[in-house]
C-alpha cells in the first residue's frame, strides 16, 4: 500500500533558476528613482556615485534592464512635464531665460543619469537596439518641453519677435538667443529645421517682401542697392552670432529673392538712377554693388549684361552713324577709343573683370563699328595721324598703349582687307614723304598686325619697308659711282617694287632738263647693276626742295611736289605763263595740274606765284606770274598739295571697287580649297564654310560667293550634280 502510494508521489523538478527576490528589483529601482529626483532637484551632493552605479549594474545583471530603462524614461518624463509647467508660468522677458536655465539643468542631470546608467547603456541598450540614454534624454526634452503645446508656439514667436526687433534696430540679448537656438541644434538637425529654421525663413521672407516694396517706392536705385547690401550683411552676421552656420545660405537666398530677384527689372530700368544712368555717370560704387548683388540671383547678371549691351549698341550706333561725328576721322576713332576705355574701366573696377561682360563689350563694339562702312578707313587714318605727328613727345610705352588700343578696334572690323588697303596707301604716303615720326612705332604696329592676321596680311607692308632700305643703299652706290654729281641738283630715288605698293597709274610729265638728265643717269646706273628690271617714274609721288630768290632778294627754300617743281622751274625762263603754256610744257594731267597750281597760287601765305585773275579756282584761261612780294618768316617753306585727307566720294568708290576685285580671287581660292577636300557639298554649306574661312579678313557676301561659284563652274573647276541641283561636285 505504502509502496503504491510512494509510486504515486510526484517528484518535483529541481529548480535550476534562482529567482531573485522580486522586491529586490523594486527596492533597487526606488533608490535609483530617488536619486534621479534629487539630481533634478539640484540636491545631488549627498549621492554616492559608486552605490548608484552598482545598483543600476545589478539591475541589468539580474535581467531587470527593461524595468530600469522604462523606469528612467518615466521618471525623466514626469520631471520634464513639471519643468515645462514652470517654464510656461514664466512671464514676458523671463520666458526665454527660464527655458535656457531649465535646459542647462536638464543637460547636467542627463549627464549624471547617463553616468549612473552607463552599464545599461553599454550592454542592455546595445543588445536590444534601443535608444541610448543621452539621445533619449534629448528626445524627452523635445517631446515634453519644446513640443509642449503651451510652449511650442510661444517659444517660436518670442524668438521671431526678437529677430524682428533686432531688424528694426533694437538691441537684443544675443547670448541668450544663441543659447536657446543652440538648444534646437542640440536636439537634432530636424528639430532645428522644423521648429525654428523654417518658420524663421518664412517670417524673414514676409518681412523683406514688405520692406523691399517700401524701399522700391521711395528710393532710387543706388540707395536701394545700398540698403539691400546692408540687410544682406546683417543677416550673415546674425547667422554668425546665433544661428547654425548652415542657415546662412538659406537666409541669404531669402533676402536675395525678396530684395533683388523680385525687383530686378524695375531696379535696372529705374528712371534717372538705373543701370544706364550709372553707366553714363561712371558710378563705379553703385555699379559694383549692383554687380555683387545681382550675381547672387539667377539671371541677375544676364539682366545687367543685357541692359548694358543694348545701351552700348544704341550709344555706339549713334556715334558711328552721326554724319557730324564722322567728319573728322581722328576724332571719330578717338571717341570710340574713349568709350572703350570708359567701359573697360567700368568692367575692371565695378564688374570684377567678368569675362562675360568683356565679351558683351567686345560684341557690342563689333556690332556698331561695322555699321559704318568707313570705319576701316578712319581707323587707318587715325593711325596715320598718330604716326605722322601725334606721337611726338610721347614715351615709347605710351605709343604701345595707343597702338594696342587701335589694334583692339581693328579686331572688331569685319572688313579687315579694306583696312589693309587703306593702311597700305597711308603707309606709302608716309614712307615716301618721309613723314613717319617713328620707325619703331611703324614696325611695332606691323608686328601686331602680323600676329593678328598672319604673315600674308603684312608681307607687302614689310616689302615697303625693305624697298625704303634698299633705296638708301642704291642711292649711296649711285653717288659713289658718280662723284661728279656732287655739284648741281641732288636726285633721291626710291625704287618701289611693283605689287608691294598701292598701285597708282604712273602719270607722265616732262621733267625739267636738269632733272631728267639725272634721271637718265640713275636709270642707266640701276639697270647696269640689276638685270631684267624695268623702271618707271612715279612723278606724282615725288617731292623736291628748290631754292628760290624773289623780287626783293628774299631767299627761301621751297618744299614742293614733283609737279609743283616742274611748274616753278618754268618760271626760271619766263615771268608770265598761261595755263595752256604750263600744261603744254609739263604735260601734267589737268586734274593734277589744277590742284598743283591751286596750292602754289591760292593758299594764303604760301602763294609763291600769282594768278590772274585772282580767284579761288583755276581756270583754263588763267595766267600766272611769280609773286615777287612773297614773304615768309620761315626760310623753309613747305608748299602742300591741296589734297583731301579723307577720300572723296569717287575715290572711295574706286577703293571699294579695288577691294571687291581683290576679294574675288580670295573667295575663289577658298571655294576650291574647301571643295578639294570635301568633293561634294551643297550650296548652303559651301556658303557657310567659305564665310567662316574668310572671316578673319572680311565678311564675304553670299551673292558674291554664288557668283564666284558660277564662275568656277564655267571654268570647269566645279559642276552641279546632275540629280540634285543644290549639290556641287569638285572636278579634279
Amino acid at each position, binding site marked *: 500500500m505504502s509502496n503504491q502510494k510512494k509510486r504515486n508521489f510526484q517528484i518535483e523538478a529541481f529548480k535550476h533558476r534562482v529567482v531573485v527576490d522580486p522586491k529586490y528589483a523594486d527596492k533597487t529601482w526606488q533608490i535609483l528613482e530617488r536619486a534621479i529626483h534629487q539630481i533634478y532637484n539640484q540636491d545631488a551632493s549627498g549621492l554616492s556615485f559608486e552605490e548608484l*552605479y552598482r545598483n543600476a549594474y545589478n539591475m541589468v545583471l539580474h535581467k531587470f534592464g527593461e524595468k530600469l530603462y522604462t523606469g528612467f524614461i518615466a521618471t525623466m518624463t514626469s520631471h520634464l512635464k513639471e519643468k515645462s509647467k514652470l517654464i510656461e508660468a514664466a512671464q514676458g522677458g523671463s520666458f526665454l531665460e527660464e527655458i535656457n536655465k531649465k535646459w542647462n539643468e536638464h543637460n547636467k542631470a542627463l549627464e549624471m543619469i547617463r553616468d*549612473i546608467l552607463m552599464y545599461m547603456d553599454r*550592454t542592455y541598450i546595445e543588445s536590444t537596439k534601443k535608444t541610448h540614454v543621452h539621445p533619449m534624454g534629448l528626445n524627452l526634452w523635445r517631446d515634453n518641453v519644446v513640443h509642449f503645446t503651451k510652449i511650442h508656439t510661444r517659444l517660436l514667436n518670442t524668438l521671431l519677435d526678437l529677430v524682428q526687433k533686432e531688424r528694426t534696430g533694437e538691441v537684443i540679448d544675443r547670448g541668450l538667443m544663441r543659447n536657446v537656438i543652440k538648444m534646437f541644434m542640440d536636439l537634432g538637425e530636424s528639430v532645428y529645421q522644423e521648429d525654428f529654421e523654417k518658420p524663421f525663413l518664412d517670417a524673414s521672407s514676409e518681412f523683406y517682401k514688405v520692406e523691399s516694396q517700401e524701399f522700391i517706392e521711395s528710393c532710387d536705385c543706388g540707395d536701394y542697392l545700398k540698403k539691400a547690401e546692408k540687410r544682406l550683411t546683417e543677416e550673415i552676421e546674425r547667422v554668425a552670432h546665433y544661428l547654425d552656420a548652415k542657415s546662412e545660405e538659406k537666409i541669404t537666398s531669402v533676402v536675395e529673392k525678396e530684395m533683388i530677384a523680385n525687383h530686378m527689372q524695375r531696379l535696372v530700368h529705374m528712371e534717372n538712377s538705373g543701370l544706364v544712368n550709372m553707366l553714363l555717370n561712371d558710378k563705379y560704387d553703385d555699379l559694383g554693388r549692383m554687380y555683387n548683388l545681382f550675381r547672387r540671383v539667377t539671371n541677375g547678371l544676364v539682366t545687367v549684361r543685357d541692359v548694358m549691351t543694348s545701351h552700348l549698341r544704341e550709344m555706339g550706333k549713334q556715334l558711328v552713324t552721326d554724319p557730324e561725328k564722322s567728319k573728322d576721322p581722328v576724332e571719330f576713332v578717338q571717341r570710340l577709343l574713349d568709350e572703350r576705355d570708359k567701359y573697360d574701366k567700368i568692367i575692371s573696377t565695378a564688374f570684377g573683370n567678368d569675362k562675360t561682360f568683356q565679351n558683351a563689350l567686345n560684341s557690342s563694339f563689333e556690332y556698331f563699328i561695322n555699321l559704318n562702312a568707313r570705319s576701316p578707313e578712319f581707323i587707318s587714318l587715325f593711325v596715320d595721324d598718330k604716326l605722322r605727328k601725334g606721337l611726338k613727345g610721347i614715351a615709347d610705352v605710351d605709343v604701345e598703349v595707343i597702338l594696342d588700343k587701335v589694334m583692339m578696334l581693328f579686331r572688331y572690323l569685319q572688313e579687315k582687307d579694306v583696312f589693309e588697303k587703306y593702311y597700305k596707301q597711308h603707309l606709302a604716303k608716309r614712307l615716301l614723304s618721309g613723314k613717319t615720326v617713328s620707325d619703331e612705332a611703324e614696325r611695332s604696329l606691323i608686328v601686331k598686325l602680323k600676329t593678328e592676321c598672319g604673315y600674308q596680311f603684312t608681307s607687302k607692308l614689310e616689302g615697303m619697308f625693305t624697298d625704303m632700305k634698299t633705296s638708301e643703299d642704291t642711292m649711296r652706290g649711285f653717288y659713289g659711282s658718280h662723284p661728279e654729281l656732287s655739284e648741281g641738283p641732288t636726285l633721291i630715288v626710291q625704287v618701289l617694287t611693283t605689287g608691294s605698293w598701292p598701285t597708282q597709274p604712273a602719270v607722265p610729265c616732262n621733267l625739267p632738263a636738269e632733272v631728267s638728265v639725272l634721271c637718265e643717269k640713275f636709270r642707266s646706273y640701276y639697270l647696269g647693276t640689276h638685270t631684267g628690271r624695268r623702271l618707271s617714274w612715279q612723278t606724282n609721288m615725288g617731292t623736291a626742295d628748290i631754292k628760290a630768290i624773289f623780287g626783293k632778294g628774299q631767299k627761301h627754300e621751297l618744299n614742293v611736289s614733283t609737279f609743283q617743281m616742274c611748274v616753278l622751274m618754268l618760271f626760271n625762263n619766263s615771268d608770265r605763263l598761261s595755263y595752256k603754256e604750263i600744261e603744254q610744257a609739263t604735260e601734267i594731267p589737268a586734274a593734277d595740274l589744277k590742284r598743283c597750281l591751286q596750292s602754289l597760287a591760292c593758299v594764303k601765305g604760301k602763294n609763291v606765284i600769282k594768278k590772274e585773275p585772282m580767284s579761288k579756282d583755276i581756270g583754263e584761261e588763267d595766267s600766272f606770274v611769280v609773286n615777287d612780294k612773297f614773304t615768309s618768316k620761315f626760310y623753309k617753306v613747305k608748299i602742300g598739295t591741296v589734297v583731301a585727307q579723307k577720300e572723296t566720294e569717287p575715290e572711295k568708290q574706286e577703293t571699294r571697287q579695288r577691294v571687291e576685285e581683290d576679294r574675288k580671287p580670295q573667295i575663289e581660292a577658298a571655294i576650291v580649297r574647301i571643295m578639294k577636300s570635301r568633293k561634294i557639298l551643297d550650296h548652303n554649306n559651301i556658303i557657310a564654310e567659305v564665310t567662316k574661312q574668310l572671316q578673319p579678313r572680311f565678311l564675304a557676301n553670299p551673292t558674291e560667293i554664288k557668283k564666284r561659284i558660277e564662275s568656277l563652274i564655267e571654268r570647269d573647276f566645279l559642276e552641279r550634280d546632275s540629280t540634285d541641283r543644290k549639290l556641287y561636285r569638285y572636278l579634279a
Partner: protein
Amino acid sequence: MGLSNDRIRFNVGGRIFETTATTLANAGRGSFFGALFDENWNLSQPEDLFIDRNPDCFAVLLDLLRTGDLNIPPNIPERLLHKEAMFYGLIDHLRTAKWGPFDGNRLHLSRSVTGIAPGDGTAIRAGPDGGCCVAHGSVVHVFDWMLEEHPTINLDYQRVNDVGWIDSGNIVLSACERLGRGDGGMGLFSSSSGELRYKFQVSHDNQIKSYSAGALSFSPDSKIFTSCKGRSNEYGIGVWDQITGKQLDFFYESPGWSLGDADKLQWLSGKNCLLVATLFPRKDNCYISLLDFRDKNMVWSWSDIGFLATAEEKRVRDAIAMEESNSICVVNEFEDLGFIDMRMDGGGSSVRWSSRSRLMKSKMPDEPCYPKLALHEGQLFSSMNDSISVFCGSDWVLTSRLKRSYGGSICDFSIGGDRLFALHSEENVFDVWETLPPPII
C-alpha cells in the same frame, strides 16, 4: 580616500588600493572612473572610496591602466575578469591589450574551442572585432571575441553554404533552398542575439523566386554579392544593398560558363570587379572570371577546359586574387601554388605552377581536406591537412607553419580582427591564433 596631490585610496572588496587620478584618467570619460571623478559628482567623502567588487580582478585592471599591459594570474578565471572589466567599462582596454596586431610569422595558439556539433564544419569566418562564427550543417555557432558563445543562427534549418560578417553586430548567412517552400536563400542576423533581421529576396522579371545562395562577398560600398541557383535558369551572381536589403543587380551566367555554382567570390576594390571562381568537383571543370557590374561585362576569364589531359593532378582547388601583383593565386590538392596573370587574356594563359611541390602525395591522411587560401596584408596563407603555411615576399617564400597535434585536417580557416581561426574536420574543434602584444622595449 585621500585627495592630496591626486593620490586616491580605494577599498575594493575589503582590500586597500592606492593610485592616482592620472592613472585612472587613462580609463576615459566613458568608464566608471571617468564618471566617478566628473565634477558633477560630489566626491568629498572622508574615508576610502568603497567599491563592492573583486579585489584580485581590480588589481589586474589597475595594472592594465598603469602599464597598458594585461597580465592575468592563473588563479583568475578569464570570464570573471571580463565581467569585472565590463563593470568598470574597461572591456575595450582589455580587448586592445589582450593580443597584438596580426603578423602571420609571430602567431601563437591562444585557445582551442571544442564544439558540440554533430557533423563536419562547413566554414569558419573571423569577425572584425576578434569574434568568429562556425557553420556546421544547417546551424551557425557565433562566438564573440571573448569566445563566449551566443545563440546559434539558422535559416529555416537549411544547409548553410557560406557565412560572413558585415560588421561586428551583423552576420549574413547563405543557405540551400527547400524546394517549393521558399525557405533558405540568404539572411541577415544579429550576431549577439541570433535573431533574423531580414531575408534577401531575389526577383526575376518582378517575380520573387526562391533560390540557393552559395559563396558570399562584401564590398566596401555596402553591397553583398552571392552566387545564386534558382529553380529554372536563374543562375548567376546576385547583388544586394546591406543597409536596405534590396536587390540591386543580377549577373546571369552565360551558356558554357559557370557562375551560379561558384565556390568563391572576392570583391576587388582596385579593379571594381568581382572575382568568381567555380572549382572542381562542383563542376567538371574550373572557371575563374572577373565581372564588372557597371556594364555587365565579364572583363577577364580563365578555365582549365582542355588543359587537363597533360596535367591530371593539377586541379585548381581554391583561388584568390592578388590585386597588387595583378595575378590570381591558385592551389591544387597537393598544396602546390600556382599563379595566373590577370593582365593577359585568361583564355590562353596557363597556370604557372611553382616548383615547390612538397611531395605529400605519399602520406595523404585518410580524410583529406581541400586546401584553402587566404591573403592578409601581403602574407599568403594556405591550409593543407593539419597545418597552415605562411608565405611572404614577392616570391612567396614559405616562412612559417601553424600546426597543432589533434583535430585532424583543417577544413577551413579565416583571418580577421587580428586573429586567425582554423576549423578542424574532426572533433569539432577550432583553434585561435593570435600575435602576442608588442615586446616591452
